[in-house]
């Protein structure tokens, strides 16, 4: 931990009895109820909780960034001034200068129309009255400080020309521009790949050592908290249920909720299937290329090889985990195998080459190959009822079914994923993320497929919900002898579910083998890096990366 946790560090921020309520049509919703917390200079405090726990709204209230129908009450003393009582004008001077914030999604937090140098320089010009020239010089220094490679060139780049990690670095540079006392980081690494996540955390730690600001770190990931924060506040339903030094909380959690969070890591392993089991899907030299228009500079037509000559086999009842950073071609591979994007190479499914087939005509095959997507909010049409969503496949594959029969089948499918069949007439927006993911699984299961492609089915969910979905998938596999192609960047989930793992990078297979083998003895550098980064967020000792 930093600087040995000095005892008489000056308290920077003291929040007392913070309440946040939103006026909604159905009455007020209390998002935050009576939260107290303090932050000292140079200290890192983590606020942990699952989605809806009010952790983000707590800091939004401090920054005066609540939605228009929200109100905050209580006191938030920063250097003797109550942030909640300040005039907007005065608050504006403090936030963005002395208290700054970085957000989860670095793409949407940057204005796509301006070069990053200008975006970093702008607050300095307006807050501190620097000239544009001086501000630009400072922006360059900041970009070097946050270790953007080739900063002289990147200062004139537009946000879309940077990678996710680089954008987050730019956001941090902007936040540091005016030497803040307090940096609020709202899930700053959640949208990033694990390897990049580790680098960003390391950078934040180094910056804190050099600049001495206090950091309020909001996250749902206890692994990060463990290695990054000194004190932690665990929030649930708008209240702080437990607080204390990180070491104590992890060693001896007092509250049941904290214990549940700590235990929410998916457990269990899957025994590999027999070598003799029949092969259900086989891909040989599968390639997918997307045309890149005219290209950045060139006149000639360029192609992006999203998947590059990849070979894989899947046996009945097996789970193949596909892991890799974003952009490694995992999802494209899945779509190619499902014939949702055109590809080259051979794909044999149940002994037939389906690479050249129009699966719409081959309905018998189509229904055997189903998919569950990552985003439980985007994968259900908002205008259809749950019953209509779940039975849509039956309309195609068994058009002769009567309506009553379809309803019966939908009820059975919903029961199978542990949802109340009475919910058939409801609409997706009335369900939570975990419930929606169950609905998406029911939609695929109603067709009784042989192979189910799971494209990051648990990534958008809270840990505790994730664990339940993993259990559900495991049970379905056992009951129906399903074969899974499980795509994820979350190695903990892959380890719990897969019997073999395929590591992908830049469209190619880097390494493939039995799960335990890969996790215990990764052979390739890339795999090693991936493992190191992932287990740093799964709660391994901090020394591994603290560097």
């Amino acid at each position, binding site marked *: 931990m930093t600087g040995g946790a000095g005892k008489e560090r000056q308290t920077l921020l003291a929040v007392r009895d913070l309440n946040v309520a939103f006026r909604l*049509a159905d009455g007020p919703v209390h998002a935050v109820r009576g939260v107290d917390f303090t932050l000292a200079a140079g200290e890192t405090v983590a606020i942990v909780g*699952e*989605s*809806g*726990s009010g952790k983000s709204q707590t800091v939004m209230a401090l920054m005066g960034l609540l939605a228009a129908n929200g109100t905050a009450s209580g006191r938030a003393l920063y250097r003797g001034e109550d942030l909640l009582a300040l005039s907007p004008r005065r608050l504006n001077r403090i936030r963005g200068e002395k208290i700054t914030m970085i957000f989860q999604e670095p793409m949407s937090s940057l204005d796509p129309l301006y070069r990053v140098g200008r975006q970093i320089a702008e607050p300095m010009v307006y807050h501190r009255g620097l000239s544009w020239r001086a501000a630009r010089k400072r922006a360059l220094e900041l970009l070097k400080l946050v270790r953007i490679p080739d900063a002289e060139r990147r200062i004139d780049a537009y946000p879309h020309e940077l990678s996710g990690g680089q954008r987050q670095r730019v956001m941090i540079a902007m936040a540091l521009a005016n030497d803040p006392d307090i940096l609020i980081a709202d899930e700053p690494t959640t949208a990033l790949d694990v390897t990049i996540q580790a680098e960003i955390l390391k950078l934040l730690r180094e910056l804190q050592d050099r600049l001495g600001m206090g950091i309020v770190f909001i996250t749902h990931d206890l692994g990060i908290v463990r290695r990054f924060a000194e004190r932690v506040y665990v929030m*649930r*339903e708008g209240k702080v249920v437990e607080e204390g030094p990180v070491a104590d909380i992890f060693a001896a959690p007092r509250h049941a*909720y904290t214990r*549940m969070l700590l235990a929410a890591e998916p457990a269990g392993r899957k025994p590999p299937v027999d070598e003799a089991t029949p092969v259900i899907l086989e891909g040989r030299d599968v390639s997918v290329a997307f045309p890149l228009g005219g290209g950045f500079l060139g006149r000639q037509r360029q192609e992006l090889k999203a998947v590059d000559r990849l070979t894989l086999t899947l046996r009945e009842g097996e789970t193949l985990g596909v892991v890799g950073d974003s952009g490694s071609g995992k999802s494209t591979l899945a*779509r190619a195998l*499902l014939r*949702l994007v055109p590809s080259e190479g051979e794909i044999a499914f149940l002994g037939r080459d389906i690479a050249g087939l129009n*699966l*719409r005509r081959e*309905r018998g095959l*189509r*229904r055997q*190959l*189903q*998919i569950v*997507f*990552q*985003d439980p909010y*985007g*994968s*259900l*049409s*908002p*205008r*259809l*009822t*749950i019953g209509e969503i779940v039975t*849509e*496949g039956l*309309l*195609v*594959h068994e058009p002769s079914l009567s309506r009553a029969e379809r309803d019966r089948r939908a009820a059975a499918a919903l029961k199978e994923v*542990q*949802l*109340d069949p*009475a*919910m058939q*007439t*409801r*609409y997706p*927006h*009335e369900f*939570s993320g*975990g*419930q929606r993911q169950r609905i*998406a699984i029911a*939609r695929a299961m109603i*067709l009784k497929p042989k192979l189910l492609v799971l494209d990051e089915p648990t990534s958008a969910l809270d840990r*505790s*919900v994730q664990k*339940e979905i993993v259990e559900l998938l495991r049970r379905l596999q056992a009951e129906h002898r399903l074969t899974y192609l499980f795509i994820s960047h979350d190695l903990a989930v892959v380890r719990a579910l897969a019997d073999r793992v395929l590591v992908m990078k830049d469209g190619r297979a880097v390494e493939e083998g039995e799960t335990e083998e890969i996790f215990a003895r990764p052979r390739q550098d890339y795999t090693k890096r991936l493992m190191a980064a992932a287990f740093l967020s799964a709660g391994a000792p901090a020394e591994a990366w603290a560097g």
Partner: protein
Amino acid sequence: MSLAEEPVTLKEPVSGRSLWQDALARLARNRAAMASLLILAVMALASILGPALWPHPYDRVYSEYVRVPASLEAYPHEDRIVPEMQRSLARARVDIGAVTVAGDTVRAEISDEEPIDPRMIRYVERSDLFSRVRLAETSADGRSAVLEAEVARLFFIAGTDGNGRDLFARILMAIRISLAIGLLATAVALVIGVTWGATAGYLGGRVDNVMMRIVDILYSLPFIFFVILLVVFFGRNLVLMFIAVGAVEWLDMARIVRGQTLSLKRREFVEAAEALGVSDAGIVRRHIIPNVTGPVAVYMTLLVPKVILLESFLSFLGLGVQEPLTSLGVLISEGAKNMQGASWLLIYPSIALALLLFALNFLGDGLRDALDPKDR
């Protein structure tokens, strides 16, 4: 936010609230939109039932009441009764004695050198001022008589136009025509535009290119020229108006729907439907079109006033509906010509048009707010 996401057991059978029901509930809380809806309902009802119930038909000419100002008092005014009776009798070429008015009854003594032909009362009946004309007290030789008539009390609350037609009846008729053109042309635009846009957007590639280039070509035709051409070839009629306006307005709709479709197409639920094996037509019908209804509904409520304005503009130019039918544009155009002498001819139709447009626009805005998911 339950810890374990257990299936909720529900006692009563639940029926979910769809996004539309949610949106309508939000709309119901929007006072301006609800007031607009009320105004629209009243105007629509009045324009449908009004002309049948109103005492004056919209095309009846009251030649004695040309361009009378709007008034809540009944016409004729007292001072006009005696001169009008004298004028009518003069046309019948009889000698006129004393004319007296008692209450609603006019008595005129008439005499002639020949015996009076009872059919002469037609001259009086012809006037809009008198009803139930009869000859009373005809003298023995038939050369003199007393003519009695009731004074017909007529109300022109919005005055009359240059041809002596009741303006209020004409406004009701005009609202009917304008609303009909607005709604029908919008419906034409809706059907063509949504189908065209959703198909082009969903199929994409070359089909999209060809379909949208057709839209571009139609866009580049000058609209007024197009309408003039149609009118020259086919003469002025109402159906032509629908076709002309609808044929142009669907272009915007097609573009909006195509844009929405392009972004919807990349959503995972469309991909999921593809993986289920749903046909293109099924995806467009079940997934694309229901999900574009929000923006389309908003655009539609804003398109109706736009079409009404367009029709008014065409009518103002003299390319619109044919007399004696009328529309708000025609009325305003006439009003504008008579602005100095008869301001009511301009004021009342303008109020009607403004009220209609305000209500439609407020409703459209309210609908947009209600459908905006950010408010959720």
